[in-house]
Structures are given as C-alpha cells and as structure tokens.
C-alpha cells in the first residue's frame, strides 16, 4: 500500500517535470539598445507561448564587454545554451570548443544570404537574421556639379576613375577632404572596411587556400599596389588620417566637410534624413578584381556545453522566420538575410530607400577570412594599414604583417584547418 503510494507520487512528480517547460538560457550582445531588445523579447515571448517544452530566458550584455564575457564564461564553464556571435569571430569560438554545430539542414538556410550563414569545418555553426553592408555614400548634386559619372552596380568606378574623382573633388577646394574612409573608427572597422580594397586589388589578408600563410598574398605585388594606393590617399590629403576625431567621422559628411564617405548601412537612415533623395549609395571602386565589400554580422549559435541543444535549435529556427528578419530590418536598418523578408521590409522592398545595400551584399560581399586565427590577423592588418597611412614603408609594413600572421598560425599548429 505504502509502496504504491510512493510509486504514484514519484510518477506524478516525473510527469510534472515533463510538463513544465525546460529553461533555455541565452546571451545577447545588444544591451542598451531598447528597440532591438524589444523585437528580441517579442520573439522570445512568441516562442515561449507557442510550445510547451522550452522557455527561453535572455540576458543582455553591452556589446563592448560581450566577447570578454563569453571568453570568461567559457573559462569558468558557465556558458548559456544560446550565444550570439560576431561572424568573423565564430570560427575561433567553434575551434576553441565553445560552440557546437547548429544541426540545421542546408534547405533551411538555402534562402539566406551566404554571408549570414556561419560555416566552419564543413558544418553550419551559426546563422544570422541580417547582414551589414558598406557603400560609398555621396550626394547626386555633388557628382553632377563636378561632372562626375554616377557609377552603377554593373559599372562601378575603376580604380583610376576613382582617383580622378577624388582629384577633381580635391581641386574644387569646396571640401576639407574629398573622401572619408573613417580612420577614427579603430578596431574591427579597419579589416572590415579596408581589406575589401586589398581584395579588389587581388590580394588578401591570408591565403584562403588552407589559411596557412599570408606570405605572398598580403605582401605580394597586389598587396604592395594596394599599399601604395592607400598611402597616396593620405599623403595627398584625400582622406583624414588616423588623427581624425570621432565627431568628425560622425558628422563630417553631413556638414559638407567630406564629399564622399565610406560608411555602413547603419548610418543610412541619418544620411537619408539629412539629404533625402539626393543621397547616393554607390558600390566600391573596382581595382581590377571586381568591387568588394565586407560581410558577416552578428549570428546565433549553440554553446558546446548546452544540455538542451534541441530546445536551443528550436528557438533559433523560430527566430529564422521572415517576420522577425523584417522587424529587425525595419527598426534597425539592417540588411535582411532573405529576399522574401527584404521584399516585405520598409527599407529594402522594391522601392525601399536602402534596397541598394541588399544588392551590394548579394553581389559584392566577401566574408572575412574564415579562420580561428582571424582575430589575430585582424589586429595585425589594422596595425599595418594604420602604419602605412602614417607614412611607414609599404613593403616593410606588409612584410612585417605577413611574418607576424605566419608566426601566429605556426604557434597555433595551423589553427585546425
């Protein structure tokens, strides 16, 4: 009698546990951005209400402290189930064993821009709802005033044409600088925004065939040609140097101090507010190997230590719906990850004012080197382009950068490629 009671009680307890929702924890980098948090919270509430197995709990971190928090969490063994991860950093986290493969089918990501799907070692580790894109932002009236051809996606400016454009604008004397590449934004902006120029010249940060060496790729003839062009930009005062203050970067183009600014879609709304229809978002110049822009933004992945990858995956699949992609894009101006979400969105629809960024992402985007060593390469590249901008010898700087990247790859036994 007593035994059956206990058994019944145990059974009730077990079934009670099975009915309660299991908690799935999630970390996000966007603390402080209320609009962004509101969309994500809405998506989480929808998910928690839509099924009875899982309940997602989100914790937000300020972006500047996020990566450090994840590293600390991994060292301390306290990572959550779901992490968001910056695209170029993902291979490092996957290689280090923080992340596990998402377990998504190829069909599920077929509609996504390639740059929003994070792959490492032949498997999908992360997926993003948006991408970011950069463009040469300027005003139609400016180009028309100086008789400059308006480039198109099919016919971008060539390298020589671009140099002539800058010379014309410079000669007019109407601007402090004809171009602003954003040297005030130190950090990831440098490799993200400037390595595409190098790639358009035919070089790269590292040889993507195996990712074992930068020698001859970064400091080869194409790299040197890029370096000399880059140095001339600063030597001829075509663009503000590393001493540019951040305020000038933010408002210089709006104030008319710069004629063209090399800037991301996240500033598009501000520029449109200021100049309306007069704004042009132009593709990068083609220096011989096609116009290139950087790609890869924040994406979602599952921690290796997660005890509930099923639940984590279910939530990520839930997030991948067009309605959330559209919502993020409408609120934050991000490039939607799928064409259908883009068509439904405010800025990227058929007549959207930012639609050109989707085309740029689709046609010109080249993700940063997919290697765990990228985090180091990014720092080395940043220093090299800053030094060259400040007048250091081009060949010596690129040689030194290539040597340092190679030494680092060696020290890490080839980073598992």
């Amino acid at each position, binding site marked *: 009698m007593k035994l059956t009671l206990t058994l019944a009680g145990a059974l009730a307890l077990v079934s009670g546990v099975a009915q309660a929702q299991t908690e799935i924890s999630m970390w996000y980098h966007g603390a402080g951005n209320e609009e962004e948090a509101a969309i994500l919270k809405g998506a989480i509430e929808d998910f928690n209400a839509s099924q009875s197995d899982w309940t997602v709990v989100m914790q937000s971190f300020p972006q500047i402290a996020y990566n450090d928090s994840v*590293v600390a969490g*991994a*060292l301390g063994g306290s990572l959550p189930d779901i992490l968001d991860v910056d695209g170029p950093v993902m291979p*490092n986290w996957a*290689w*280090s*064993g*923080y992340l596990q493969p998402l377990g998504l089918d190829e069909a599920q990501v077929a509609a996504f821009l390639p740059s929003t799907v994070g792959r490492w070692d032949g498997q999908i580790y992360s997926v993003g709802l948006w991408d970011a894109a950069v463009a040469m932002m300027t005003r139609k009236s400016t180009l028309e005033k100086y008789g400059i051809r308006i480039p198109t996606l099919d016919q971008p400016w060539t390298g020589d044409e671009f140099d002539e454009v800058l010379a014309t604008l410079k000669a007019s004397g109407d601007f*402090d600088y004809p171009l602003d590449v954003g040297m005030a934004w*130190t950090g990831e902006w440098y490799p993200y925004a400037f390595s595409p120029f190098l790639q358009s010249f035919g070089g790269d940060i590292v040889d993507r065939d195996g990712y074992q060496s930068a020698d001859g790729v970064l400091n080869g003839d194409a790299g040197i040609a890029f370096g000399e062009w880059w140095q001339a930009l600063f030597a001829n005062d075509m663009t*503000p*140097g*590393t*001493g*540019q*203050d*951040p*305020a*000038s970067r933010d408002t210089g183009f709006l104030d008319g101090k710069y004629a063209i600014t090399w800037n991301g879609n996240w500033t598009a709304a501000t520029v449109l507010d200021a100049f309306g229809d007069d704004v042009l978002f132009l593709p990068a110049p083609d220096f011989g190997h096609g116009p290139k822009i950087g790609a890869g933004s924040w994406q979602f992945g599952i921690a290796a230590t997660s005890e509930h990858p099923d639940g984590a995956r279910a939530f990520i699949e839930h997030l991948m719906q067009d309605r959330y992609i559209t919502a993020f894009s409408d609120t934050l101006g991000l490039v939607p990850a799928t064409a259908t979400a883009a068509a439904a969105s405010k800025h990227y629809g058929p007549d959207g004012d930012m639609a050109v960024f989707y085309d740029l992402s689709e046609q010109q985007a080249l993700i940063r080197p997919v290697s765990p060593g990228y*985090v*180091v390469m990014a*720092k*080395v590249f940043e*220093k090299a382009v*800053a*030094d060259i901008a*400040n*007048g*250091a010898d081009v060949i*010596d700087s690129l*040689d*030194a950068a290539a*040597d340092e990247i190679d*030494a*680092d790859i060696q*020290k*890490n*036994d080839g980073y*598992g490629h």
Partner: protein
Amino acid sequence: MASKLTRSNRAGWAFALPGFGLIALFIIVPFFFAFGLSLTNQRLISPNPTAFVGLANYRDLLGLGVITLEPERDAGGQILRGADGTPDYPRVRNFTRNNPDHPRLDGMREWFRWQSGDTQKVVVAKDVVFMKALVNTFTFVLIVAPLQAGLALLLALLINQRLRGINVFRTIYFMPVVVSIVVVSLLWRFIYSGDNGLLNNILSVLSFGLFRPVDWLGNPSTALGAIIAMSIWQAVGFHMVIWLSGLQTISPTLYEAARIEGSSPWQTFRHVTWPGLRNTAVLILIVITMQAFAIFAQVDVMTNGGPRDATQTLVFQAVQRGYGKQDISGGSAISVILFLIVLSISLVQRWLTREKN
C-alpha cells in the same frame, strides 16, 4: 618572536585579513600566474595543449642583432649609387628571412640603422614593437617623473597659503584627478584634433594666424609629447595633495625662527621646507615612477600605440598581446619584464635616498 607577533596582535591580524586576502588574490597570485604562464605557450583560448617552452617568449621579445650592410657593387666592384648619389643597399629582409648564413637573425626586423662610411649598420630586433615600447616607456617616465613632481610641488606651495578662496584653487587643481582617465583622454583627443581642435585654434589666435595647425596625435614626432603633457596635467593634482600634506607637517615654529633670523624666502625653502619634505619627496618619486611605468589608458583611448609605434608602451603591448591577440604567454612575459624593471628601479631609488647615518 613570531608567536608574540601573532598572539598579541590577533585583532590586528583579523582587521588586516580582508586587505591581505584581496591583495594576495588579485595581485600576488596573478603575479605568480604571469610568471608561470610566461614560460609556456598558453593561449587565451585554444583547444591545443599548453606546453612548457622555457625562455622562448623572452628570447622572442629581447632578441637583438646587428647587420653590416655593404653597398651593392657592380661586376667591376664599383658601388652602385641611386640618383641622389647614395649607395644602394641590399634589403634587410634578405638576411632575416630563410637565410641559412644567418640563422640567428631569422625572423628579425629592422629597428634602426646608421651610416659609417659606405657601409650601414642595421640593428635588428626579434620584436621591434616591443623595443619601441620599451624606449617610449622609459622616455615617458624620465620626462614625467621630474616634471610632474616639480610642478606638483610648485602648486602645493602656491595653495599652501592662507588666502581667501584658496579652496577654490585647491579644487580646480585637484579636479582632473577625480575625473576618469578615459573621459579625460577622450576630451584631450578633441583638444588635440588636427582639423579644428582647441589647441590648434588657441595657438592660431595667439600667433595671429601664423601657426600652422598640427595633427598632434597623428604625427609621430608630436604624439608622445602630447600624451606626456596631458598625463602630467591629469595626475599633477594627486601629487600636489601629497606634497601639501608634507608641507603641513612642518612645524610653524621653524618658519617663525627662520623669519626672526631674517632668512630670505629662497633660504627658507632651501633650509626649512625642503629638508622637512624629505620623506614626502621619496614617496612621491617612487609613486610617480611606478605610475608612469604603468601608462596604458591614455594610449588605448587616444592613439592605439600609433602613429607608427610612436606611442607604444609596455602595458599597452601586454594587453594588446595577451587579450587582443590572445597570446597570454607573450603578454605575461612583458608583464614580468616590466615588474623586474620597476622593482630594480625602486630598489635603486630606495638605496639612493636612504638615510645616511
């Protein structure tokens, strides 16, 4: 003896415990960690196993070599000269990359060179950035320590007077100390801005437009100076307060006696004030030296070590490597070297300023 120390001071030890505990946990233990890590190839995050590498990290930082470059000659032994008459020299990289004749120079880079006759001597270093950081840090300390201490003493003497509203000046001089160094650095970045920064504008007005604007932080020859000036201004108030406390320990009767003896202000300072400040001076010298060696935030916010390594410093490099480039062992090695430098300098300072009797 030890038993008496522990027994009769039980309450004292109890009070000291939290402090000792925290110091041990956050300063002493990490130091031993750093020392241990610097002998391995530990990465910040990596699936690869950690291995003991001995002094390899130190060799990678401190390795130096000298190359003598002979000018290039044609088949007849004549020196090949460029358009301006200077001889052509082979590239240093020919010696330092995969050259079996110079295995010791492998992987080194040019630090600096000088001319002697037709040959050039090139000093190559395994880690040029570290060497530049070392030189910059010493330059920084050698300029900041005397200037900041002197200026702080001057300010302390100025505000150590009974005047109406003297507290206003005390507050103003002390203000930069209480503001976060990161905020101060950001503000000074605007002041030093090359386009239309405050400093350029002021200099331009004062010189009736003759002054050509300078990109203070973007120019390798002015960047370190700009950081030095700003650092002195920022921390001078702190040392001023220490001087001030020293000044106020000097007995007024000594000044009275000096006045009765008819001593001039300089004589009073030389023979009453300065001897009375002896211990304060030793303290300030050691504190400024230690603080100056640790310069980091200004560089991180204002220049990132640039332009062209003109403002690299040891702590900035340690952080940059250990965290930015995830090379914790390399960063630790720099920390250990910095520790040894500061320790030996402090010991020398203690010895030089010891009581001689």
